[in-house]
């Protein structure tokens, strides 16, 4: 009975893999495997650099990390001093510019949160999250 149970469970587990693979291929461009942000809202360092003057870089890391070093020209905008820094950011923002938000690394959430709040609260379009964050920027510097 035990071997029958295991055999049946394995057959079911294997059967479920077939539609899973088909669906994963179908949804390939709709979900990022690296980050919860949809692929369309992510940008690589190379892509963001290519936007040059058409991009505003936003540093979502804490103030002390921003003070230590940051992407040249980036503006600080973290959730600790959101209201104060948002006003400063909106002063520099213009509708034709793309906003590139980054935090420390691939695993951090701050850039996603800040990007989300910029879209929802400030009603901004063209807000992107930098893949790999500050660490990736340093690698490709």
């Amino acid at each position, binding site marked *: *009975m035990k071997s*029958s149970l*295991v055999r049946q469970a394995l057959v*079911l587990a294997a059967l479920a893999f077939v539609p*899973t693979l088909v*669906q994963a291929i179908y*949804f390939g461009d*709709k*979900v990022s495997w690296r980050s*919860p942000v949809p692929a369309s809202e992510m940008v690589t360092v190379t892509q963001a650099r290519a936007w040059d003057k058409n991009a505003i870089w936003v540093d979502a890391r804490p103030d002390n990390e921003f003070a230590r070093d940051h992407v040249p020209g980036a503006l600080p905008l973290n959730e600790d001093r959101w209201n104060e820094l948002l006003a400063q950011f909106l002063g520099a923002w213009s509708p034709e510019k793309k906003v590139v938000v980054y935090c420390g690394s691939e695993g951090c959430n701050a850039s996603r949160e800040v990007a989300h709040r910029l879209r929802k609260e400030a009603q901004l379009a063209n807000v992107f999250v930098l893949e790999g964050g500050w660490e990736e920027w340093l690698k490709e510097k």
Partner: protein
Amino acid sequence: MNDTSNIKHQTSNILHFLWQIVDVIVGGIFIYAGAIKVLDPVQFANDIDNYKILPWTISVGLAFYLPWLEIFCGLALIVRRLYFGGLSILTALVAVFLAATIAAKIRGLDITCGCFGHVSQNWNFPAHLAIDLAILAALLALSFRVVSGNRLQDAV
């Protein structure tokens, strides 16, 4: 003597029919829950990620895989093929999910389980717990019935 035997036989048939209804209801619940999540795997991946237990990549993989597993196991209960395998997988899934939900609550996480798509998004924690415990109880009752040998013949 014959009357007693007939009554026993009829009672057994009625019980068998009632258990079949439980199979269909429980199987149907998992097919419904799986189908809703198949339609929006990205949302389900976010729901899994909200538990803050697994890396995002694994959450995405599970968001694609688990709904189909639920559907196949639900079908197994209804059509009574690979029955015990389906029952065991579903019992394990619900037990793991219950443990994760309780752990998330203890850690103070504000989670949406997304188990039944938008229908379950506004359920509070006690409602989640009550429904999951009821499903787990039904699965355990079905498992106990198989283990006790009453339907071993059907199950294999």
